């Protein structure tokens, strides 16, 4: 095993241990229902988290994804309500728009040399603002094609429904893994995260890589928006507020360093599952008040970070005796 794989292994072990523990307490959790729910309910989050993984690997951040999901949903709902365009064409259109939106943010980040945090924060305001302008109402989507897509599921013994959207998420993760680890673009992403100036001197095309990364993130946010619109059959401009933070948390729990350059797409998958598990556990428990819910989520987040930190320390402290400062 390569030393760099350690955080990934830690994440996977943490998930498995937590799952076993939870099932011990609530046997109903060991059902196909819960497993299927984990996939379906987190599908949109998983898809944006793949994009977020790329962004964070490159040392950036994308705060706009939650708003882009909402915008995508509203746009689809409105266009399917007001025109007779086929949903597939609408999907293509909206994906093109979100990719362009992401690419534009990437271009601003690169050419104007501005921090990603701020550019994507402005993007977050803009995307949600545009969603409001399209419609403040929640708009149902009633196209029959949506019913067709929603009826595509496999009902496992035990009642779990493995839906199309869950499969889309799995596919996104697999493609994301291949792109990250087996393509030149992926290697450039890691290079950028290792140090933009060094990467530049080594001949990494900064402009196209940066733009590509944010276009990818934007595109995946668009895809997540489509999945979300399938999930709720509606578009709503207030939806998915704060999803960017969930995605970032999932990526970090998955073992990717926010400072960039180190991490795995697969880790994010387990990060998503861990977050989903936390929520499922809280619902199964069912006794937490509104405020304790928040405190417990924060506490568990902290516990996971600490666990990861501890394991990483325990294993690397011996390897690198020199002072090592975590860059924020």
């Amino acid at each position, binding site marked *: 095993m390569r030393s760099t794989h350690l955080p990934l292994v830690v994440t996977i072990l943490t998930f498995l241990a937590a799952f076993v523990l939870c099932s011990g307490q609530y046997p109903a959790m060991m059902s196909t229902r819960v497993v299927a729910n984990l996939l379906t309910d987190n599908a949109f989050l998983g898809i944006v988290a793949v994009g977020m993984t790329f962004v964070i690997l490159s040392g950036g*951040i994308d705060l706009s994804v939650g708003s882009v999901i909402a915008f995508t949903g509203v746009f689809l709902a409105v266009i399917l309500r007001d025109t007779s365009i086929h949903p597939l064409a609408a999907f293509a259109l909206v994906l093109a728009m979100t990719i362009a939106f992401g690419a534009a943010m990437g271009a*601003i980040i690169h*050419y*104007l*040399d*501005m*921090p990603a*945090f*701020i*550019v994507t*924060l*402005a*993007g977050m*305001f*803009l995307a*949600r*603002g*545009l969603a*409001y*302008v399209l419609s*403040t109402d929640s708009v149902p989507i009633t196209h029959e094609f949506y019913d067709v897509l929603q009826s595509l599921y496999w009902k496992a013994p035990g009642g779990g429904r493995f839906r199309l959207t869950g499969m889309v998420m799995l596919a996104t993760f697999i493609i994301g893994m291949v792109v990250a680890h087996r393509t030149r673009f992926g290697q450039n992403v890691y290079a950028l995260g290792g*140090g933009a*100036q060094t990467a530049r*001197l080594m001949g990494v095309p900064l402009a196209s890589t940066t733009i590509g990364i944010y276009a990818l993130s934007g595109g995946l946010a668009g895809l997540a928006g489509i999945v979300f619109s399938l999930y709720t059959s509606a578009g709503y401009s207030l939806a998915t507020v704060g999803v960017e*933070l969930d995605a*970032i*948390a999932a990526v*970090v729990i998955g073992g990717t*360093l*926010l*400072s960039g350059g180190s991490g795995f797409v697969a880790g994010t998958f387990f990060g998503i599952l861990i977050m989903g598990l936390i929520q499922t556990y809280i619902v199964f428990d069912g006794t937490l*008040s*509104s*405020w*304790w*819910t*928040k*405190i*417990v*989520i*924060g*506490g568990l*987040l*902290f516990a996971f*970070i*600490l666990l990861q*930190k501890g394991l990483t320390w325990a294993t690397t402290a011996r390897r690198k005796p020199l*002072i090592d*400062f*975590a*860059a*924020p």
Partner: protein
Amino acid sequence: MTHGLQATLRRVAPQLMILAAVLLLNVIVFPDFFRIEFQNGRLFGNLVDVFNRGAPTALLCIGMTLVIATRGIDLSVGAVMAIAGATAASLVADGSGWVTALLGALAVGVLCGLWNGVLVAVLRIQPIVATLVLMVAGRGIAQLITEGTILTFVNPGLIHLGAGTVLGVPTPILIWIGLGALITLGVRRTALGMLVEAIGINESSSRLAGINSRVLLICVYLVTGFCAALAGVIVAADIKGADANNAGLWLELDAILAVVIGGNSLLGGRFSIVASLIGALIIQSVNSVILLSGLPPEFNLVIKALIIIAILVIQSPTVKHALYILRASAESAGVDTPAASASAPLAKSTETAR
């Protein structure tokens, strides 16, 4: 200290110009914008509102500037506001005086800062994640204190902090200007400012040069917690109640935005609190334009986004560099320009040290 004043003025000149532009926008949508009256024992006017309503963001961005100077970020300030407000409210509800309530709230804020600081400086968790924990849990803690209700109070002393006036000037204005001045002097008249910048630029070097970076980092988060707590008390006092769920909601983003509009780099290092405070005023002026314009609320975010994008683009290193080149060529090439004032535009064309 006229030299220092001049340097500060030079540093904040772009921010002042942007502020002037946004205020002008206000005047365009509402010609009476600058009218200030003395009414009902207090200054009354839109400009006063900008200063008054900007108080929470301004207070937050004092601490946030320092945290960002150390290469950190604090996402929890909004939640800390809620906790502090709830603490103050519950203390007066239990019969304490306003001084106790204020001190209690500030102590809780400092405690939150300590928590963040320890996570960042001792456990070495990346600041954005470390403070995310309190951002998520903090609102829960605040609600735990208020038990989910809006805890209203009638204590005049506490209310005075948010809604009162001193010689006609709303108290929050005095508080943020006072604290801003105090902390600016505190870091610039001592060595603290330089040391904070040093650990933000290169912590390893700074530590080896003998700076107690760990303690300094914790202190910076303490200050941020303090500022957030003060903002929380003001916000609660303003509405005579602690609203755990909504107090300071998403205000951390405004504070970060203010710091960046103030021309401070998110990568740490050189900072200017005064510039951040002007940044906070700029954001509040943008909000004021939106309110005064009378457009339907669904346009609020788009307008805000567009104005902010415009401001950020004007301030971006590339555009600054282009402007610098333009100016330099206008002044005819080859003129010796002092390296320090030109250092910012250089960032683009040169290999930076990280």
